């Protein structure tokens, strides 16, 4: 019987099976940010176990609230900073070098196909785009990960989603994943790995695959995962060129992780998305989706473009193409948070930042910012935000606020009109 990619990764990392159905896995990378890690650090200190399992396998960033907004967030940042220094964690990213974790860490080349990755952040599933098993965990799992380099998981049952056809003009990875979540429901993939396959995924850039995998958790999924292919090799090549004789050799090695032809899936969903329209959410759950045609005209107060879902260069390029030479509506305010310093810098040199600023966007430093209502860009009671982020829970971006999830293109068109708008007419 064949194995899925997740089963292969589990088999290669198995440390222990203390009980039937529970696998304790060796971890390749443990990621940390300043919101969920300081309590883990404090607890390790209190237990007299202020140690890390492997300095080189721990990556840390201050990203949720940066620069610090008050004494409490400054203390959180300080705790992470002091800890990283104390343990000589080389890959620690502080102000000036910091960006949104799930955009920054891939950009630094920290992920490889076949890796196991955890982080105290639910959108860690993003890294599955590289053919890794990457899962969000709580602080206690993180603590054990930091201390011992292991984490426990249930057996990885897999839902395979074949995205067949071709993405139409004006329709992007974000629309595809919102459509998938609409089909699965918010708990349709709980305790499951979602394997994204098909011609649409094959044709996607790594950035788009990250957008796809980022939202696997919004259907309850433990991880989203893509097959590592030549697109993956090209993305990683600057980091792996010394390890392989050629890109072809790297590809041969990466393909060892591919799900076998006769792998067993719990469920296979075939979706031809050639006829898909731009999609937006309308309620307080990410599976509440409608087409932009149904939602067009809904007024918004704020547009937010950024986050681990859609703050990458590709996203900024798409939005800038629509915004070029235009102004945002006077009734709306628009915020751009490039996800990393590199994204910001590249966008600056390409002239994209000028386009955003001339259109009337406020451009902030790379940070998670308004996405979870923790720092810059929080909504007031009753306000509505068109957002490229991943979660639309009631009050998510501020108490009493309403969030509509959408692609960067749809958010750009919405900024121009001050109400939800179809991006296709601007392309």
């Amino acid at each position, binding site marked *: 019987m064949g194995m899925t990619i997740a089963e292969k990764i589990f088999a290669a990392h198995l*440390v*222990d099976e*203390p*009980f*039937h*159905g*529970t696998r*304790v896995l060796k971890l390749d990378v443990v990621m940390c940010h300043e*919101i*969920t890690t*300081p*309590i883990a650090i*404090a*607890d390790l200190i209190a*237990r007299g*176990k202020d140690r890390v399992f492997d300095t080189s396998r721990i990556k840390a960033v201050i990203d*949720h*609230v940066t620069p610090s907004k*008050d004494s*409490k*967030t400054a*203390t*959180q940042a300080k*705790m992470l900073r002091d800890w990283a220094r104390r343990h000589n964690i080389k890959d620690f990213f502080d102000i000036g070098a910091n960006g949104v974790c799930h955009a920054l860490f891939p950009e630094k080349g920290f992920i490889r196909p076949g890796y196991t990755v955890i*982080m*105290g*952040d*639910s959108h*860690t599933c993003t890294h599955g785009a590289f053919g890794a098993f990457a899962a*969000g*965990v*709580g*602080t*206690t*799992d993180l*603590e*054990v990960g930091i*201390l*011992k380099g*292991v984490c*426990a998981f*249930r057996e990885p049952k897999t839902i395979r989603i074949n995205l067949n056809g071709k993405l139409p003009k004006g329709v992007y990875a974000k629309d595809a994943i919102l459509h998938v979540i609409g089909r699965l429901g*918010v*708990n349709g993939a*709980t*305790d499951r790995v979602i394997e994204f396959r098909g011609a649409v995924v094959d044709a996607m850039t790594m950035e788009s695959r990250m957008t796809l995998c980022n939202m696997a958790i919004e259907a*309850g999924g*433990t991880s989203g995962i893509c097959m590592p292919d030549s697109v993956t090799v090209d993305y990683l090549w600057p980091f792996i060129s010394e390890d392989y004789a050629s890109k072809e050799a790297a590809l041969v090695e990466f393909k060892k992780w591919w799900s076998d032809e006769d792998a067993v899936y719990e469920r296979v969903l075939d979706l031809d998305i050639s006829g898909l329209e731009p999609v937006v959410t309308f309620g307080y*759950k990410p599976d509440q989706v409608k087409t932009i045609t149904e939602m067009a005209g809904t007024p918004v107060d704020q547009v937010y473009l950024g986050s681990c879902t859609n703050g990458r260069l590709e996203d900024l390029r798409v939005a800038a193409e629509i915004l070029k030479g235009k102004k945002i509506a006077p009734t709306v305010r628009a915020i751009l948070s490039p996800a990393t310093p590199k994204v910001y810098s590249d966008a600056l040199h390409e002239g994209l930042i000028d386009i955003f600023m001339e259109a009337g966007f406020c451009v902030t430093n790379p940070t998670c910012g308004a996405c*979870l*209502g*923790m720092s810059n860009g929080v909504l007031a009671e009753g306000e509505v935000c068109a957002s490229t982020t991943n*979660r639309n*829970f*009631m*009050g*998510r971006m501020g*108490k009493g606020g309403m969030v509509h999830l959408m692609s960067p293109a749809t958010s750009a068109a919405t900024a121009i009109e001050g109400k939800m708008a179809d991006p296709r007419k601007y392309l």
Partner: protein
Amino acid sequence: MKTFGGPALFLDRADINTDEIIPAKYLTEITKEDLKPYILEDLKLPGFDPKGEKTKDSRVIVSRSNFGCGSSREHAPWVFEVNDINAVIAESFARIFRQNMFNCGMAALELPKEKLDLLFGYAGFADTAIAVDIEDQKIMVKGGGKEESISFEISPFDKALVLAGGWVDYADSKY
């Protein structure tokens, strides 16, 4: 080992998320105890008052499917823990929340819909109390002059974590 049981709080809705359990603005707190007043602050549910006596007095939460969906924040179980609510009973849980509960030596217990409906039959009584016996895998519910016992399934690993008092001690002794 923690104690599981006491007056019950019934939250009759699916998909109660981590933002509703503890809003992100309180994630700047760095001790569990500081989270205490903010339990379920953003949960809008008919008849439910997060600041009410009922919330303060309850020791068990009973809810519907996909409880704890959303963020990985362990602050969600912690805000229950510091309010002496060590058990949540629901039809299903989001994976990270459920694991966080067991990792803290707390209990996230799943019941099939029929058994859960039976439990919700006690929601209208002011004196409803629930006791959970982890070792025997039984929930005892009492209220409105009646009582009954409901068995539940739990994975051996999750049970071991509750009995060990949580994942850190378990893992440190073993790996």
